[in-house]
């Protein structure tokens, strides 16, 4: 193990490490702690400039209730779910199939198709912006959560294909060969042989895509406007414009908006990291 395990070092070093650890963490999360602390302050504290002293009162309940009652944040969050969940499902369906096709079959243009997905995944969003907006407009889906989700499904298929294909490629090939010899059709091989083995990959990608899409801001501003369709990232931006200098509300709103992916991450940490670090170790 590198660096040297701390148990094998001098007691003084061990002590320093144990003290340094929480201090480092607090410094690392300091900006976030500042926001959390601000989010429970009273409006009076904010106007009086008492940001960092002891709060005169703890207004956690009031502030968070105010965020929900005085702003459409509930609606924004609902919109986020309406975009995120269909995207996760759609992307998984498409990429299970593309990953299967590219991971199992050997055909001439296999590599070419695969590289198309990989390359597309790295493209800067701005070069897609004008045409995708036009396309969405012409399909009558501008300013709908469906229009936004459809784009996300298409774009995320690039990354997910890369992921699924590499995952399937590492499955034992004999399983498939045996099934073929038995005369099982290709569709049944996909459904009964390969798909059940892909559960870990599906779990990893669902958490990852959920987070990516929930946190998307650029496409939300390009393809939607107004509280009826905008997801919470774009919504937070407009709320920030309304809540000038009401830092306690901005802070509470930020925390509310960040919650779903954070909960998702802590609940499914192992899958999340497995998805993220794909390819980092080989």
């Amino acid at each position, binding site marked *: 193990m590198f660096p040297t395990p701390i148990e094998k070092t001098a007691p003084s070093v061990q002590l320093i490490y144990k003290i340094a650890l929480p201090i480092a963490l607090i410094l690392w999360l300091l900006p976030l702690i500042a926001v959390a602390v601000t989010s429970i302050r009273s409006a009076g504290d904010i106007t009086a400039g008492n940001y960092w002293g002891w709060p005169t009162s703890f207004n956690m309940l009031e502030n968070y209730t105010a965020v929900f009652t005085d702003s459409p944040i509930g609606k924004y969050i609902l919109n986020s779910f309406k975009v995120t969940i269909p995207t996760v499902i759609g992307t998984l369906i498409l990429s299970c199939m593309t990953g299967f096709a590219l991971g199992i079959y050997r055909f001439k243009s*296999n590599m070419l198709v695969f590289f198309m997905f990989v390359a597309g995944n790295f493209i800067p969003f701005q070069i897609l912006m004008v045409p*995708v907006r036009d396309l969405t407009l012409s399909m009558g889906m501008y300013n709908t959560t469906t229009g936004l989700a*459809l784009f996300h499904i298409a774009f995320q298929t690039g990354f997910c294909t890369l992921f699924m294909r590499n995952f399937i490629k590492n499955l034992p090939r004999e399983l498939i060969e045996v099934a073929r010899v038995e005369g099982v059709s290709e569709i049944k091989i996909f459904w009964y042989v390969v798909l059940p083995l892909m559960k870990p990959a599906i779990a990893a990608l669902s958490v990852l895509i959920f987070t990516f899409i929930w946190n998307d801001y650029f496409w939300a501003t390009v393809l939607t406007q107004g509280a009826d369709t905008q997801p919470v990232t774009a919504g937070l931006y407009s709320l920030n414009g309304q809540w000038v200098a009401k830092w306690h509300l901005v802070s509470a709103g930020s925390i509310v908006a960040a919650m779903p992916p954070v909960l998702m991450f802590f609940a499914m940490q192992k899958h999340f990291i497995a998805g993220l670090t794909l390819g980092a170790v080989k």
Partner: protein
Amino acid sequence: MRAFWKANQLKLAPWLFLAPGIFMFALYVILPVFQSLDISFYAWDGLGEKEYVGLDNYVELMDDEAFYTALQNNIIWLVLYMLAVPAGLFVALFLNQTVRGIRIYKSLFFFPFVISQVVVGLVFSWFYDPTNGLMNVLLNAIGFDSIAVLADERFVTYGIIVAGLWPQTAYCMILYLTGLNSVDPEQIEAGRLDNAKGWRMLWYIILPQLRPATFIAVVVTVIGALRSFDLISIMTSGGPWGSSRVLAYYMYEQAFSEYGFRMGYGAAIAVVLFLIMMVYIAGFLYKMYRDERGH
């Protein structure tokens, strides 16, 4: 029909599985690249008739000071964002221990990556706030004057990059932590017998084994730097006076904002950004091609 399917199943099946994915990807990703390329040769407000102007948009770019500011900022982003890679390695080395509770520490250090850049942007705007932000409160406490980071042309881009480095370092950290897990313990022991310690051990024995992690970390960091848009939009809207714009943001502003709907000009900026990115994409694909061949 049935017989035909039976005979050609193996040839047809992959394309049937690929069809929906390729269709969506071509429609929303591949085709638009070429459409943008095409639009960049037109003057177009997004609604009326397009007017063919040849290379005019690109010629205009050559003389556009705002374009050079954005390009320069992109380069600053690319260079400074790279700090996330060694910083991530440093944090990973710090956390790669087995003391009690270390797992919780690891996930809390990773935390900034999970939250949206919009929230990160708001968090840092608050942190930099010139009157009451934590940074300036601390500066004042040790006797310095406040700095209005986001309102000062000299500091604004660096201030935003610091905000971006926060989640990006967390990302690189997690890549390295996973990499460190699979470092061969025998090689470390062998190194220790040869009296390799500290930096020498890290440089000659650990880092070569971490190469795949480093590669991915560099790739995601480059892409992150070139994609920087959210933070700029949230923290400064490109200001003050356009000094914190990058190409991605400038393009958006030209095409969609109150400054007018110059789709053609915006597309030309996007094409430049795309060409910069293409260098990296080509490099990545080349490496992947080599690896695939090696199997």
